[in-house]
């Protein structure tokens, strides 16, 4: 008998954790608490603006309804959302050290990643260890050691940049009303506001290298506290079909909410039975989530230049089609987002335009046509994914195969272990786009991704993925090589060189050395995003 899914109070959960803001424009404020009492008042004055899961979910449903009503045309709806998170130092100031330690899973004996912070953990993630190197924490613009700690992060997201900016100014104005007796702001910005915007035009929804991003996100299990007969995530599979209890929609896995939210039942490998919730230091911690923020600079000309050399090595030519082909091996998807497991040799937007298709593939096993719930329009007759146990279609070092091996053999044992590693990503690009990324030339601008993820455990999820899979030569697949996009390559003495094995269209294997890094970390931090009740407790306690 399948276990009953828990009731989730979406009025108590911040909306970027679930279902995610998913907006084209975001701004992040990084604040230090200068005066605890006044800062509490300042934060209390903002609580009414915090967007809940219920807000964001209802807006999404309304927009989808209107779009459907209008035959797919834009809904015209616009919203601005706001969420609030706290660094370890902020929690210590507002709730004390014991609670802060336990939120991150640590205690007096053992510090947690949340406690020691991203900069201290940076070398574990594969960031440069040499203080002189670009990307070392000493070069960061956010969270650089020795700079004031970031106690509070406020995320503002909206459909229009102007609306986001106006909202941001409104918040600043409110914050400015709370000062110390010496006239200082009680909540003081420690670094300038960070802005992220979608790339515009055809590149909306894509990251700077040109690939559609954020396609694959897990869904969470649970029923609405306000309507216990409804799931928090829509289920569109035929309830009688074998996958119905594992997927919300084709390829979108269902995870127990404790994968994201503290105090909820947790994912237990592939078992349908969850693990009980972890012990909480206090009730107000329930429904909170740990947030990872990373500012990842992308070297777009460098990426495509490397693809050019890869294309020559593998295909013997470097025209745009060859670049696209090799780029799709490196990422695992075509630039459109179409998965190469379903369309290995041709970028076909038909695989992206239907959200029931774009994630429906495995790496190891043949795809099967999913049975859909009543009322779902029929699926088009697109080819299913092809079994690729040996990495001949998607290399084992291909980015999407590395960070989510799906049904692949993994070093952890059962593929169900993959589920317990997954997180949700809420990133947005920053910096100006190259209209034609394949032919980008260095222009002196900084650009990249504001990577944001939510998870219940930084160590077991984000850091595990980075340490073991992205930067691991032998995991999840022995001798698979490091992540071809995110991995740290090159002749670093501690790393050694790796190669990615690409199989060309004639079946010949090519081991192409991975020598260039495309990503440079520029900062970030580990934060805790409390529940609505938690926010009230923090500012009121």
């Amino acid at each position: 008998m399948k276990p009953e899914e828990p009731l989730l109070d979406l009025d108590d959960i911040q909306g970027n954790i679930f279902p995610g803001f998913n907006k084209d424009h975001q701004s992040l404020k990084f604040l230090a608490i200068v005066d605890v009492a006044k800062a509490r008042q300042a934060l209390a004055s903002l609580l009414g603006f915090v967007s809940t899961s219920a807000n964001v979910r209802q807006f999404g449903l309304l927009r989808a309804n209107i779009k459907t009503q209008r035959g797919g045309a834009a809904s015209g709806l616009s919203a601005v959302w706001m969420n609030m998170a706290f660094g370890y130092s902020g929690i210590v100031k507002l709730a004390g050290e014991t609670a802060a330690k336990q939120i991150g899973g640590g205690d007096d004996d053992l510090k947690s990643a949340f406690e020691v912070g991203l900069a201290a953990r940076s070398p574990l993630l594969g960031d440069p260890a040499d203080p002189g190197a670009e990307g070392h924490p000493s070069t960061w613009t956010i969270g650089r050691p020795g700079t004031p700690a970031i106690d509070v992060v406020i995320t503002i997201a909206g459909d229009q940049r102007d609306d986001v900016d106006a909202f941001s100014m409104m918040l600043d104005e409110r914050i400015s009303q709370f000062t110390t007796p010496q006239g200082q702001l009680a909540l003081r910005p420690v670094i300038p506001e960070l802005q992220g915007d979608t790339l515009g035009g055809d590149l909306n929804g894509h990251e700077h290298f040109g690939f559609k991003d954020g396609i694959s996100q897990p869904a969470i299990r649970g029923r609405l506290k306000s309507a216990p007969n409804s799931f928090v995530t829509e289920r569109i599979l035929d309830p009688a079909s074998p996958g119905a209890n594992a997927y919300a929609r084709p390829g979108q896995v269902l995870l127990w909410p404790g994968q994201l939210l503290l105090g909820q039942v947790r994912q237990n490998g592939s078992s349908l039975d969850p693990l009980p919730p972890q012990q909480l230091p206090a009730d107000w911690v329930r429904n909170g989530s740990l947030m990872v923020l990373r500012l990842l600079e992308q070297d777009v000309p460098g990426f495509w230049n490397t693809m050019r050399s890869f294309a020559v090595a593998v295909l013997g030519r470097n025209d745009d089609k060859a670049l696209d082909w090799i780029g799709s091996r490196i990422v695992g998807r075509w630039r459109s987002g179409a998965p190469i497991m379903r369309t290995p040799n041709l970028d076909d937007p038909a695989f992206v335009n239907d959200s029931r298709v774009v994630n429906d593939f495995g790496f190891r096993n043949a795809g099967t046509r999913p049975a859909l719930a009543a009322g779902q329009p029929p699926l088009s007759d697109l080819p299913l994914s092809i079994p690729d146990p040996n990495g001949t279609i998607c290399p084992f070092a291909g980015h999407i195969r590395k960070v989510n091996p799906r049904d692949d053999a993994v070093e952890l044992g059962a593929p169900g272990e993959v589920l317990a590693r997954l997180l949700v990503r809420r990133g947005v690009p920053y910096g100006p786009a190259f209209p034609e990324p394949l032919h980008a030339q260095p222009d002196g601008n900084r650009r990249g991704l504001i990577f944001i993820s939510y998870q219940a455990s930084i160590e077991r999820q984000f850091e595990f993925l980075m340490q073991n899979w992205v930067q691991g030569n032998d995991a999840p697949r022995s001798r698979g090589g490091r992540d071809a996009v995110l991995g740290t390559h090159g002749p670093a003495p501690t790393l050694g060189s790796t190669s990615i094995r690409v199989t060309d269209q004639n079946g010949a294997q090519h081991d192409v050395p991975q020598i260039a890094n495309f990503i440079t970390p520029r900062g970030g931090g580990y934060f805790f995003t409390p529940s609505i009740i938690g926010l009230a407790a923090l500012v009121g306690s």
Partner: protein
Amino acid sequence: MSDTAVRSFKPRKVVLAKRQPAVQVAGQVFPPNPQENLVFRGGRTLPSLTYKIFYVGKLWADGQPAADRVQLDSALSAAMSDPALNAIVAQYFGGAEITTTALPSAVLDVNTQGDYFKTDVESIAQRTFMSGALAGVDLDSCVASFVLPPGAILSSDSAGFGQLRIGRRGPPGLPEKEEEDSRNGLGGYHGSLSIAQPGGAKKLLYAVGVWSVGDNGIPIPGWDAWENVCATFYHELNEARTDPDVEDAIRTGDVRWIGWNSPSGQEIGDQPINEASRDLTKVFRKVPVPAAPGGAVPIQLLWSNRVQGPELPAAPGAPTVAALRPQVQIITLDQTLASAVPSAPGAQLSAPSKLNDFKDPNSEEKWSGVLSGFFDFAVRGTQDYLQGQPSQFYNPTRSSPAGVAAELPIKWPGFPRLLENSGLPTTEIFRRAEAISGTMIGRYRYQDEYLEWFVTRDQSNKIVRIEFTCEGPEYWDFLAQNEPDVLLALYQKHVSPSIKLQELMSGKDYNPLNVWNTTRGAMHLIQPNNSLSAEVKIAGDATILRRNPDGSLKTDAQDLIMCARYGEPGRASDPHIGDLVNGLARDGYLISIKDPVGLYMNRPRLAGFATPDGKPVGQDWFTIDRGSEDFILRGVFTAPPGLAFVVGDIQIGGVPIVFGGQVAKFIDMGLTGVAYGKGSIHNPAFDCGPAPRVAVAAASTELALTRVT
């Protein structure tokens, strides 16, 4: 007896019991010794015995060996069915008549070896069965008897199948397991093994005898070799008749499997040898048997309760007709390897990491024999399903496929996954993994990914040293049995110079849970699932293809391990090894494990490890204590000499090391599979669970039902 030797030079447990006053009884050889009278323990006995002799090696087909074979067949058949001799044994059957049927002997066309370990004998027995040579024979009462080629050494040293013996003693009356070889008085033994056949697993009783001549086996002065062997098999077959299931008794420790044996665990043939002491001619006799060519047979006298000692037969019975059988059936045994893949001769397997610990020049070969036993066991496990079809798992000591192997490195994290997934708080997970408190040893209980570690702390409770080991316990048991000096020296070198041998032993057995390998150190793996034999068995089991109810092949790691039950699904290692091996099997490869067979750790990944002064921790903190860079068996994580810091000062990503497990999390474990001949084998897939009943069984059941109705 199983593993209870027929021996002349080193009689076991000579009981110097007080003798009764001499009272001469007919047939009596020695003064009565009632204390050694056989006792019935409740097990099975075989009033109607069948046996079939298999001569191992084609050499027995021609020339002098063939002549010896004919002599032996005739004499043994005559002895085993002689009424006067059987009348002695009949006392253990309530005086009822006992019968013996000698099935025609056969020659096995199979490569011969210089040494035959128990696993070799069992492999031959298994393959003989698979050849169909015992078709139609009632296995419940038949003893398949194997005569080894001249010159071959027989050893009962099997080292078990990875089961550690922890100084455990069986109940009174249960024979002890012994290890001997035929250069030290072993003439043969009898035992049993489980073999699948239609209707489910079936027990095959067997006996084996060495060709006793010179310093090998039990040669009797003035006797021909075949006469020595005749006496040996007379002994073994009568023991099999009165105590057929002794091996089950040893395996289970349950004395109720035993038929007849003495209070000191001696079977019907054993005690007479003890009584004879150095003068074996007292019990090895040529006795008159009318049916035998020449009218006499060479036998060994058996224990008789009625004379309270070895008994000579009464006057000869009526002559019967015994025919010499010059014609012999020659049976070619299946090779282990699939015929589609060209094979090369087998090779000796190395010690773990190709170490040169051994001082005795014979140990290398013996160790290879131990590993060979693991492989045979695993191959036999596949045959439970495949029923004579080629196994996809092979024993590299017997033969290897020719050509270049595809190598498949298999790696998994060394920190216990089951514990990590327990849902416990992080600190508690680390604490439990290595806790030592009274009899609770966290390592024994939790460290189940073939990597174990032992933590040493200073007075301020700071960690100064973490020892990691991934050496299988069987190797250390082997050292204890064969090279105790080496065992001690290695413990002294790696754990403590003050260790004494007796601290490592429990009686004459090695104690893997000795104090120096539990509470005071870590020399090798002790977690019950961490063994070399387990590694080999999982790999073998995983070569069996599994199918879903709709007939499609199972491919998911979890699905496979739940289906085949070759390990613990919650570990990383078992499902991952099984997953990758089964993938190779699905591709039709012939699969084994690369030499040196073992489990090996990687160096810890130290990126992010730093000393308090911010300097990165280098690999000079990790010393390979046993093994080589490619095959690390033992590593020690401690500060290099001259450094002011200790392990407990190190931070990993800003978090100070307070548990050894924090370092273990950065160590991967691994082994390497080898695979030959992609697509060369297309074996059927099986449903989940144990080996299935095959169609023949269904047919016979149906037939039985028809008869009933």
